[in-house]
């Protein structure tokens, strides 16, 4: 096959072709085991001589560890050993989470267990290993740990004030990172603007609440010096590198296996000190150690996110054209930047993304990232996106109101034109091809705006207050080495796929990207089936084992389909070529005159069947003596993919929320929600739709319910699912999802990510809808979550 392969020649958008699987709602092959309860999550793995770990966690936000008395704990039946920070430091080097390209960034060295001080309430301080988790917890209860409580720096607003507690004195102050992006003349634009609107926004500190908590089993084998880690993680190769580096092992001696992962949303892509402690303890004991966080531990030690205060201004001219965005972001990240992605990235994304959907000349945005004595924050689904979108879209609605313009009209006027690409945003982001206007038009086909507005007027007469809110957004997907690699983090931006045909004509594909429920394995199977030319039922996918799959980055930042999918497609095409070469030799035909359709070699011109793949497999593997001697016959191919032209493949979309605010109680009732998004080529609409819906629901959680609340001493008050509210089925609205497809030209497949779109836009749409509902009262809310209390305060009902 010497012709150049194109999306057209592959039939990527032709669903009527045989074995055409791209764009089809094929059910997930691995769903069957999930519905039968036969998946294998990390806690389901049992090993000989397995012991269980539990941690003594700091009851103080900031305290010096005075003494640790382990004697009573060691007498508890079932307890095997107790480990302190000093014990683990002997086998493990500390890590410092900074990235070189985030200039001036600083953080302190972090150990698996702290040596001298606990710096947040919930930080693991001592570890107990026992025959069962229950016995380990008994051991923890018998520990006597003496602390000297220290003053805590809890409030991010005062973290840089003179006289504040400096959490790591060796750093000099609590400033982790600051960056300003500036284009044009913001001050001048504001001075000469027709109107300038402004508001202060807060996004509530929240967390991922993966239903499967963080889970790990580390198994160090003294006989061969290998460390095998069963881990609920999104990035197995990254963790392999981290375990090897910190524990001073050869990278090839570490193997990370992740089978089924019960939700991740970014929470499981970080290095957690308690998980590193488990690896250390296994290294020391030479036996497998299991740690499964319980929900209480999850709330206090999973990474939190989105703890931001943002002051924003938008200047507009008399026609409603945007002149300048001026944004000041402040965020508190806890006592350490989280390794290896760093906790500065969220604030950095706010700088990158504010104003993102719009075309305007002047931009200034600063982020200031500070330390505090609370749980560390880091990347969580749609990193920084919902923050930037809420600020941008909140200001856009304020501007519309100030000018007496319709919220849709002001957006239409300012959204980047669909024919303006490629272009660079004022924040410096390169856009290859977005579809804001097409998406808006599609949304307006779906949302019955006139009917809703008429209903709104009618309902108000009856004392019922409903609101409609819009939010455009951009989403960063398919990250290149510009995300982490250039900063010195060993996080792969490329991914590989190895595709192999077996004697029976079935195909096995091993991929570096991972499955955490998105349906990665399903789309890889579709892509490989399409690329090779076999029924999807003939494809088996292997992911999540660093010993067997090609080296890669795993699944985060929406790279599974765009990066992993393209590697799969390229390797499948290469395998097909190889099969056809062998088939040509067997059938005495040119390989290029043959094709593979549904597992059968056929004549390309006539479609006539020549030979099933199982026959080809039989001869290649068992009767190679009958083939020409010089014929290369490896029915296995590997390809790796990395994006080259653009640092990220930006996607875009727009959401609308229709809701009702009970002005007596402050309760918000969601009525209906819409989202149109453009993730490039859609591989499986069924999976994309529910990804978007799941994302919307997580966005709704942040907008209305979810909040990690601390008191002024730094005590976390929301430590159970009864205190920390997550969205439940009964309160969720029907969600309508529409698609526009602008495939990226970076790859043959053209896929961009879809997993963060819902989360990116939902909070802004809800905020704007609430403020639309409250318009008759002149009341507005800008602090998430929009709780009944905050709404009643805005209404002046309560003080």
């Amino acid at each position, binding site marked *: 096959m010497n012709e150049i392969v194109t999306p057209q020649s592959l039939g990527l958008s032709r669903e009527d072709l045989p074995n055409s699987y791209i764009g089809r709602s094929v*059910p*997930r092959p691995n*769903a*069957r*085991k*999930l*519905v*039968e*309860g*036969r*998946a*294998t*999550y990390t*806690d*389901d793995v049992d090993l000989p001589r397995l012991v269980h770990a539990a941690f003594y966690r700091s009851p103080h936000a900031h305290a010096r560890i005075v003494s640790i008395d382990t004697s009573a704990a060691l007498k*508890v*039946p079932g307890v095997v050993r107790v480990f302190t920070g000093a014990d683990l430091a002997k086998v493990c080097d500390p890590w410092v989470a900074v990235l070189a390209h985030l200039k001036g960034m600083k953080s302190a060295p972090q150990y698996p267990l702290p040596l001298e001080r606990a710096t947040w309430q919930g930080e693991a301080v001592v570890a107990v290993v026992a025959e069962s988790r*229950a016995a380990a917890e*008994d051991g923890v209860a018998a520990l006597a740990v003496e602390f000297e409580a220290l003053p805590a720096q809890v409030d991010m607003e005062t973290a840089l004030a003179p006289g504040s507690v400096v959490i790591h004195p060796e750093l000099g102050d609590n400033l982790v990172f600051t960056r300003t992006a500036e284009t044009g003349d913001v001050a001048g634009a504001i001075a000469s603007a027709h109107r300038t609107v402004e508001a202060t926004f807060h996004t509530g500190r929240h967390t*991922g*609440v*993966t*239903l*499967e*908590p963080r889970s790990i089993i580390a198994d160090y084998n003294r006989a061969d010096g290998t460390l095998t880690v069963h881990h609920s993680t999104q990035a197995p190769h990254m963790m392999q590198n981290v375990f090897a580096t910190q524990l001073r092992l050869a990278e090839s001696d570490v193997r990370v296996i992740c089978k*089924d*992962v*019960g*939700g*991740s*949303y970014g929470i499981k892509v970080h290095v957690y000190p308690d998980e590193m402690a488990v690896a250390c303890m296994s290294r020391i004991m030479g036996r497998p150690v299991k740690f499964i966080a*319980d*929900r209480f531990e999850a709330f206090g030690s999973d990474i939190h996110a989105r703890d931001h205060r943002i002051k924003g201004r938008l200047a507009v001219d008399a026609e409603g054209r945007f002149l300048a965005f001026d944004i000041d972001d402040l965020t508190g990240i806890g006592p350490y930047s989280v390794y290896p992605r760093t906790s500065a990235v969220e604030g950095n994304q706010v700088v990158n993304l504010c104003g993102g959907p719009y075309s305007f000349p002047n931009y200034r945005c600063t982020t200031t990232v500070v330390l505090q004595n609370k749980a560390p924050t880091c990347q969580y689904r749609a990193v920084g996106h919902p923050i930037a979108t809420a600020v941008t879209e909140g200001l856009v609605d304020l501007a519309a109101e100030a000018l007496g313009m319709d919220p849709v009209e002001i957006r239409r006027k300012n959204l980047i034109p669909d024919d303006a690409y490629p272009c660079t945003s004022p924040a410096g982001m390169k856009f290859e091809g977005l579809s804001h206007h097409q998406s808006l038009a599609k949304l307006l086909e779906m949302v019955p705006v006139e009917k809703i507005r008429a209903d709104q007027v009618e309902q108000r007469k009856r004392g019922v207050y409903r609101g409609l809110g819009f939010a455009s957004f951009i989403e960063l997907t398919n990250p290149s080495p510009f995300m982490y690699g250039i900063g010195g983090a060993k996080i792969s931006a490329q991914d590989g796929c190895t595709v192999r045909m077996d004697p029976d004509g079935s195909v096995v594909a091993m991929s570096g990207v991972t499955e*955490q*429920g*998105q*349906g990665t394995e399903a789309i890889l199977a579709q892509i490989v089936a399409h690329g090779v030319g076999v029924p999807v039922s003939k494809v088996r996918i292997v992911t999540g084992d660093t010993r067997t799959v090609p080296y890669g980055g795993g699944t985060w930042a929406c790279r599974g389909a765009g990066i992993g999918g393209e590697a799969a497609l390229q390797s499948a095409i290469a395998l097909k070529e190889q099969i056809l070469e062998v088939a040509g030799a067997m059938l005495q035909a040119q390989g290029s005159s043959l094709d593979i359709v549904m597992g059968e070699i056929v004549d390309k011109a006539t479609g006539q069947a020549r030979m099933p793949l199982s026959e080809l497999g039989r001869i290649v593997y068992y009767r190679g003596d009958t083939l020409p001697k010089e014929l290369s016959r490896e029915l296995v191919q590997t390809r790796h993919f990395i994006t080259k032209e653009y640092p990220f493949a930006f996607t875009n979309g727009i959401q609308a929320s229709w809701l009702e605010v009970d002005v007596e109680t402050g309760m918000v009732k969601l009525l209906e929600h819409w989202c149109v998004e453009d993730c490039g080529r859609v591989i499986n609409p*069924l*999976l994309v739709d*529910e*990804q*978007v*819906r*799941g*994302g*919307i*629901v*997580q966005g709704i959680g942040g907008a209305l319910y979810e909040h990690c609340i601390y008191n002024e001493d730094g005590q976390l008050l929301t430590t*159970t*699912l009864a205190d920390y509210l*997550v*969205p*439940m*089925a*009964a*309160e*969720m609205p*029907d*969600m309508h999802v529409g698609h526009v497809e602008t495939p990226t030209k970076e790859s043959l497949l053209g896929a961009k990510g879809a997993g963060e779109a*819902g989360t990116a836009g939902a909070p802004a749409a809800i905020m704007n809808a609430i403020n639309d509902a409250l318009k008759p009262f002149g009341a507005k809310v800008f602090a998430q979550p929009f709780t009944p209390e905050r709404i009643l305060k805005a209404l002046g009902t309560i003080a």
Partner: protein
Amino acid sequence: MTTRIDVTLTVNGERVSRSVDTRLHLVDFLRSELGLAGAHTGCEHGVCGACTVRLDGEPVRGCLVMAASLDGAVVETIEGLSDSGEILDLQEAFVARNACQCGYCTPGMLVTAADILTASPQATREEIREHISGNYCRCTGYQAIVDAVEDVLKARAAKREAA
């Protein structure tokens, strides 16, 4: 600190006898004593529903029931419901609708959803939402789950009609 009690119960149609720690919960008993890992723990305080199994015909939170109290009880787990084929149509609808993503909530969700199929065969979408609102799903957005349950309710109703 630990006391043990002997219990004999029926799990998925098989009789099992064990001496259990009095503080052991049903879900941990199933997982660690019997190797039935289909029921999961998500919160261990009765909120999330991931641990839902059937006890004497009723869905219960496996994290709130003590194993020591189960002498003579009849327990069914997702493994048993799968083997018996009782909820095959529901499972197929979950697969067809992609009503599970990570699958961690799914066994508990299915046991709860199976309950509505018999308890409330005429349930509306709102009633389905209400019924499953004690089972958290962090991945799906719930809509596909509601769709799947609705599909099965309709299909079963049509079948009854035809019969």
